[in-house]
């Protein structure tokens, strides 16, 4: 018995929900970014899984989408972490509950 497509999809859904858990329930800005990265990786895993199990895997569409998703996730991580550093300079904290003043001091 080999793994079916639904097994891969269940793994990917679990990974997505763990990312969602990190993004929703943590107070630290970097944890939220980690959760978003996990959710993006789960989505890319789904694309590759659907490519692998498709009737015609000669056309590498899912693989291409995954490659572009990885590139975009890298850009998102760079800008997100730069934002964390910039916000940390103003507020001297990375707890998102304390980002409550409108203007930077």
């Amino acid at each position, binding site marked *: 018995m080999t793994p079916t497509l639904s097994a891969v999809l269940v793994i990917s859904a679990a990974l997505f929900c763990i990312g*969602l858990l990190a993004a929703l329930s*943590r107070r630290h800005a970097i944890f939220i970014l980690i959760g978003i*990265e996990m959710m993006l990786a789960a989505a890319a895993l789904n694309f590759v899984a659907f490519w692998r199990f498709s009737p015609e895997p000669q056309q590498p569409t899912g693989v291409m989408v995954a490659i572009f998703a990885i590139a975009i996730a890298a850009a998102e991580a760079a800008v997100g972490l*730069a934002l964390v550093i910039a916000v940390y300079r103003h507020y001297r904290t990375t707890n998102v509950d304390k980002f409550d003043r409108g203007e930077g001091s």
Partner: protein
Amino acid sequence: MNTAAFIAIAVLTLSGALAAATLPRLIHAALFLVVAFVGIAAFYFLLGAEFVGLAQIFVYVGAVAVLIVFTILLTRREEEQTGGLNWGGAVVAVAVFIGLLWAILRTPAVNIAAGPIDALTVRRIGEVLMTDYVWPLQCVGVLLTAALLGALLLVMEEKRP
């Protein structure tokens, strides 16, 4: 696909991800995030997309994880114990997972095994990137340049007159 390898990689990935999401210390979470990303790369290898797996290791483990660790070290001040999960978020995540699981298990079309496959060579990926996907490739190049400049602008010290 090998079932034993599949189960081993699934356990590795999900436990790494769960540790990354729930550990109170940020630096431990970043290291377990690396474990989870290596597990995802192993999934790519198992699924026959070797190039994506390599790109995943280069980009996530090589760049993103190092960037996260640098940011943690740059912003570490009070070593804040923000531990303790917010239970509302946990409830939402579990509810979403149950909904997705219900949808996946109810769909008979996804309950299929993988057919045989020709190896997807890097040559083929290069050909497709340079023909069918040349515009998306250029757009990603512009996006990465913009992200590089934007990140630099954000972290530059502002000069107050």
